């Protein structure tokens, strides 16, 4: 290449502003523009005098300086003088004005480093055309209409285009005089050579070992003079290797007598090569699609990262800042990008062996969730993300389903149908302003070169775009759009995802399908009418299946899908088939082919397992899709992944298999698009083939790494940007603009169950009540109510507990869900010392050895008793006997009848006798019959259900527990698999309920405030997954908020709280969106007790401000005293 000759003394340069180094030193000829990239000719800009100036975007002369911030301050004498701190003669000013390109920064630099002295008033430039045959032929013909992607319009952009200049250091590899002098042009070359045998070998050697980055510069004869310093060479080498840029050097300073390893200061002028804007798509596409059966980090991906880093560094060096970028400051971003890349590098070093193995051997990748990478999301982060993702616009238009669809859609389902149709038909929302892709930045092509000369421009191309995250460059506006003709339907469970998809299947059919329907059995469509996906695998092409939607679902849901599909379709409007097991023998290739359009199934339902096994078969056959004539041989009209979180692990084979399913429209259904990692989402995006996010290194750089380096907000922001156009998500808690729930809730019935305390319980209650009242009255009289508040309150607490279970009163360290718990325990100590009370309570704790008893009965007795149960009660004639109870002489009656009869006789001062045999009855020898007919462990007995006898009185300790068990028993009889929640504010009471449930052989789980988050989650999971009759014991405080217990249908509130609002909140855990059945709530209230009075207080107030935290502690106490006064009245 030719360069303008420049001679003259090098000027000492100091950098006051980074942009200043664009200043040219070649002053001797008074023609600083002489040295310019020899890449194109200046036809479009007559002012440009140099033959070799690159084209320039537009003609705003002097507006933008090379390599500087385009918005930097314009030159102005006053500013200038105030900056340099002295008056400057007008001559100098005018020289500076001529040379600074209207940039005050540059002017200051020119002035201070003395360069201006070598400059004179700008003379009319001497035209010195040096035609460059290589490039001028193309560089000037501009075709603004042509798309830059089309190969025929390459010439709209010259071979290369100048973007900036920067200073760099090099070191000499050669000694001698006059080898290089100021303003000598050097070639910057990337050429592998033998490592130099110099004393710096060790430094270089290290670099060589890692990667060869040597960049040398040569003089015109091609003689190597030296090399670029490593920090520059690192990235310059990448840019050259990957044909992104070319560089030219100008010597700024070199010692007159050059010795090896002397520092040489160079100015590097950089031009972007045209090629970097093109060809990249293919490269990336190759990269992405390369592996049907080979994934993992590849060399390409590494190159990509290097390219990205190099570009970012380059832009940093030439100080080119984006004219348009999204959100965060570009500089800030760049640093992060570099950090991200470095993190990756580190990781590479840490485990290169493992990685390479994974690359070489795809078969070693796990099938399931093992070896997942990525950091787990905290719950609140997940919440935040979902919150953002589910800002559903209720103004979305609705679409009516096709008339072949047999079900009625709710409005929100019609809206999603509209959305899905729009996604599939790619109807872009016209109203939305075209926004730039968030990852891209816009840059203005420099208008002037390093010598402040105008650069030739290219019409309609004032700017270019770079994606610093991927290293992609573009001349076209990178619109934010997703090419994916599908999306993620992420409605919460219960909102009808299946139905919505079926409505879509009915409503949006392919043209071929429609024609086939119209024409009956005749074949109509021709292949050419069909849109085709690009080849997905290099090895073979999938045949179009234009009528068929493929559903991939977990095996257990296959039948459900088919029945739903039938239900949702008018007769013979939808042909569905399950492709699984024996039916798998079907030749899908023929069946679904276009030729068979009229008879092709509309819906094929298959399992993840089938997908995986066919995938493996094809993999074994080297990727020949057609070889199995199965799922992978076809390009479906639509594929739907149900429960798509099944593929959340991108490395799992199932996931990879799903990625490879070919289809025009791709949908993923899941209630949890992110289970616990952002990577979960990647896999869906990958399946959907959303450019560019389906590139993992892209995803990593932009989402995972920021997230892992704790920049959550940004990572989540980006995820949102990804999700927004892609995801439709509604939750059950959403309300329509009219405030109505999306899905109306089933009814809820609250019933108060009056509990009759037993005599013994009442004794305890009365005792505690009298004490409490006495204390209260005494304190009222003494005026010390507030002082004694804690003690009084504790006694009230005890009173309330005695309504639940007398023994609670004595519990010293009762675990109470109450703020005054500690105080209560203290006061309770006083109660516990009380001998009278003690004796009253004793009755409830007398131990019985009934476990032994029940095994001692002969089997025939038990059988007889069991059979008697179906008879009517001899006393009340109920049939069957209610709570069958037997006497010591084995005669059965209802428990109540028997007890009443005994009571009746006792009242008449008679010895109780058996109603059948008139044997005297020992009231300790009464046994309740416990039937195990509905228990989980049942199934081994073949001669009727197993029964055991339970000595009466053992769980009779508390009327509430007895009633609870009784109600649960009845419930179990009626609904053997129903789930119930039992709330109490006293966890110690829950502890008493537990054994009663265990005795009744009821499966139960428990959740209270003492449990860790993990344990709670486990409990809830167990409750959710349990298939049989299950009871959840829940403390009111721990379970009052947040939980979703819609799997339960019954609620038992064992004790009232001061404010019903709290109870209502607890009830709403069950009665909330997602609840499909009627909910029955039973509030257990001890009759004639403080509990009844608490109800009255609840009614009076409806809510107590204290429960909302609006009152001070003192106010709360005053409030409570009032309540207590009423309670004890």
């Amino acid at each position, binding site marked *: 290449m030719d360069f303008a000759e420049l001679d003259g003394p090098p000027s000492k340069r100091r950098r006051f502003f980074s942009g200043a180094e664009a200043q040219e030193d070649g002053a001797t000829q008074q023609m600083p523009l002489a040295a310019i990239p020899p890449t194109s000719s200046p036809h479009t800009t007559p002012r440009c005098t140099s033959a070799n100036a690159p084209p320039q975007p537009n003609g705003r002369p002097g507006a933008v300086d090379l390599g500087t911030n385009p918005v930097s301050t314009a030159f102005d004498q006053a500013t200038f003088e105030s900056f340099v701190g002295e008056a400057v003669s007008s001559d100098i000013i005018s020289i500076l004005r001529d040379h600074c390109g209207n940039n005050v920064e540059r002017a200051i630099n020119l002035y201070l480093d003395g360069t201006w002295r070598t400059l004179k008033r700008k003379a009319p430039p001497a035209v010195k055309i040096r035609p460059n045959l290589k490039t001028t032929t193309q560089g000037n013909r501009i075709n603004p209409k042509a798309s830059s992607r089309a190969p025929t319009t390459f010439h709209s952009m010259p071979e290369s285009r100048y973007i900036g200049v920067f200073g760099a250091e090099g070191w000499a590899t050669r000694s001698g005089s006059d080898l290089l002098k100021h303003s000598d042009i050097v070639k910057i070359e990337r050429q592998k050579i033998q490592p130099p045998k110099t004393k710096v070998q060790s430094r270089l050697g290290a670099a060589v070992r890692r990667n060869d980055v040597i960049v040398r510069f040569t003089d015109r004869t091609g003689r190597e003079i030296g090399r670029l310093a490593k920090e520059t060479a690192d990235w310059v080498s990448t840019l050259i290797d990957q044909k992104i840029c070319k560089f030219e050097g100008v010597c700024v300073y070199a010692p007159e007598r050059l010795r090896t390893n002397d520092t040489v200061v160079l100015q590097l002028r950089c031009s972007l090569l045209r090629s970097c804007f093109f060809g990249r798509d293919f490269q990336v596409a190759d990269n992405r699609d390369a592996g049907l059966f080979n994934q993992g980090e590849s060399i390409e991906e590494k190159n990509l990262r290097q390219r990205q880093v190099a570009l970012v560094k380059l832009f940093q060096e030439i100080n080119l800042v984006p004219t348009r970028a999204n959100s965060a400051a570009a500089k800030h971003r760049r640093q992060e990008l570099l950090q991200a890349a470095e993190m990756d590098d580190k990781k590479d070093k840490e485990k290169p062996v493992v990685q390479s193995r994974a690359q070489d051997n795809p078969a070693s990748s796990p099938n399931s969730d093992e070896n997942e990478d990525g950091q787990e999301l905290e719950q609140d982060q997940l919440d935040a993300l979902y919150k953002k993702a589910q800002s559903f616009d209720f103004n979305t238009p609705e679409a009516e389903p096709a008339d072949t669809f047999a079900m009625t859609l709710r409005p929100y389902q019609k809206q999603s149908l509209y959305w899905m149709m729009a996604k599939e038909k790619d109807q872009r929302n016209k109203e939305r302003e075209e926004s730039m892709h968030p990852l891209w930045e816009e840059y203005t092509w420099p208008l002037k070169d390093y010598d402040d000369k105008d650069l030739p421009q290219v019409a309609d191309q004032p700017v270019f775009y770079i994606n610093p995250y991927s290293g992609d460059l573009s001349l076209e506006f990178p619109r934010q759009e997703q090419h994916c003709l599908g999306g993620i339907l992420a409605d919460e469970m219960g909102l009808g995802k299946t139905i919505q998809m079926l409505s879509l299947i009915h409503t949006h059919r392919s043209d071929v399908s429609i024609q086939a329907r119209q024409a009956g059995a005749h074949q109509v469509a021709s292949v050419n009418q069909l849109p085709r996906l690009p080849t997905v695998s290099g090895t073979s092409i999938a045949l179009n299946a234009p009528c068929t939607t493929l559903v991939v679902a977990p095996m257990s849901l296959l039948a459900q899908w088919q029945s739903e599909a039938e239900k949702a379709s008018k007769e013979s409007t939808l042909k569905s088939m399950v492709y699984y097991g024996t039916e798998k023998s079907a030749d899908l290739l023929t069946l679904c082919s276009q030729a068979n359009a009229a008879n092709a199934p509309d819906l094929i339902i298959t399992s993840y397992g089938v997908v995986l096994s066919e995938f493996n078969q094809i993999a074994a056959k080297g990727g020949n899709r057609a070889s199995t004539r199965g799922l992978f041989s076809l390009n479906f009209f639509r594929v739907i992944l149900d429960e798509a979180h099944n593929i959340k692990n991108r490395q799992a084979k199932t996931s990879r298999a799903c990625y490879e399913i070919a289809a025009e429209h791709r949908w993923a259904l899941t209630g949890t698009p992110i289970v616990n990692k952002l990577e979960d989402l990647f896999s869906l995006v990958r399946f959907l083939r959303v450019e560019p996010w389906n590139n993992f290194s892209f995803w990593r750089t932009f989402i995972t790494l920021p997230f892992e380096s704790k920049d959550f907000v940004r990572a989540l922001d980006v995820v949102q940007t990804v999700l927004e156009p892609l995801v439709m998500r509604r939750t059950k808690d959403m309300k329509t603009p009219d405030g109505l729930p999306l899905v109306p809730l089933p009814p809820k019935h609250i019933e108060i169950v009056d509990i009759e305390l037993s005599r013994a319980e009442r004794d305890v209650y009365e005792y505690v009540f009298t004490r409490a009242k006495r204390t209260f009255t005494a304190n009222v009289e003494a005026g010390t109510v507030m002082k004694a508040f804690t003690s009084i309150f504790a006694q009230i607490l005890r009173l309330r507990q005695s309504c639940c279970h007398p023994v609670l009163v004595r519990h010293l360290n009762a675990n109470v869900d109450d703020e005054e718990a500690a105080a209560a325990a203290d006061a309770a100590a006083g109660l516990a010392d009380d001998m009278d009370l003690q004796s009253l309570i004793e009755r409830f704790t007398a131990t019985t050895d009934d476990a032994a008893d029940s095994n001692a009965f002969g089997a025939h007795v038990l059988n007889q008793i069991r059979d008697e149960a179906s008879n009517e009660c*001899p*006393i*009340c*004639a109920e049939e069957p006997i209610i709570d069958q109870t037997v006497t010591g002489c084995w005669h059965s009656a209802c428990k109540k*009848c028997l007890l009443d009869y005994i009571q009746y006789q006792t009242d008449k001062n008679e010895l109780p*006798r*058996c*109603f059948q045999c*008139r044997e005297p009855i020992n009231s300790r020898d009464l046994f309740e019959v416990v039937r195990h007919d509905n228990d989980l462990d049942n199934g081994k007995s073949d001669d009727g259900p197993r029964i055991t006898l339970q000595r009466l009185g053992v769980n009779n300790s508390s009327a509430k527990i007895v009633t609870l068990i009784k109600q649960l028993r009845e419930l179990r009889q009626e609904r053997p698999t129903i789930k119930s929640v039992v709330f109490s504010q006293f966890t110690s009471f829950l502890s008493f309920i537990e054994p009663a449930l265990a005795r009744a052989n009821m499966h139960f789980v428990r959740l209270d405030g003492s449990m860790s988050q993990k344990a709670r989650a486990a409990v809830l999971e167990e409750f959710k997954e349990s298939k049989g009759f299950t009871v959840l014991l829940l403390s009111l405080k721990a379970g009052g908020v947040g939980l979703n217990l819609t799997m339960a249908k019954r609620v038992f509130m064992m004790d009232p709280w001061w404010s019903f609002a709290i109870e209502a909140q607890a009830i709403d855990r069950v009665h909330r969106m997602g609840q499909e059945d009627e909910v029955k709530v039973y509030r257990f209230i001890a009759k004639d007790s403080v509990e009844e009075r608490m109800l009255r207080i609840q009614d009076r107030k409806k809510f107590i401000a204290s429960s909302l935290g609006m009152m001070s502690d003192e106010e709360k106490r005053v409030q409570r005293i009032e309540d207590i006064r009423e309670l004890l009245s």
Partner: protein
Amino acid sequence: MALPKRIQKETERLMAEPVPGISAIPHEDNLRYFDVEIHGPSSSPYEGGVFKLELFLPDDYPMTPPKIRFLTKIFHPNVDKLGRICLDVLKNNWSPALQIRTILLSIQALLGAPNPDDPLAADVAKSWKEDEKAAIATAKQWTQQYAVPK
């Protein structure tokens, strides 16, 4: 007060499966009040007679036994002249497991086997003990006179 299930069931059964020789029909205006007829057992002095009784179920039935008495005059050592019956199951030996049907059967049996050792009508018991034949004749005559439908 609603009629307890037990009474309903007993009534239904008495109607559906009547005991031979015994009928019990509740009053329409008081379902606890029954008109009862018992045929005198064969080969007893009461053979051929149809004895009317009234039966009332008290509120605490079946804790307490039903109240029952003969309306038809009868010469029987365990029935007084007001028609009250001396029968253990109607007194101490009552059990809620017993029913109207069983009680009426017991009364029918009592007709077949008078028990002068546990008398209610002392004079009748006395004559029964002193001259059983004469007593039986009297019983037969009373039956003819008061109990045989004309």
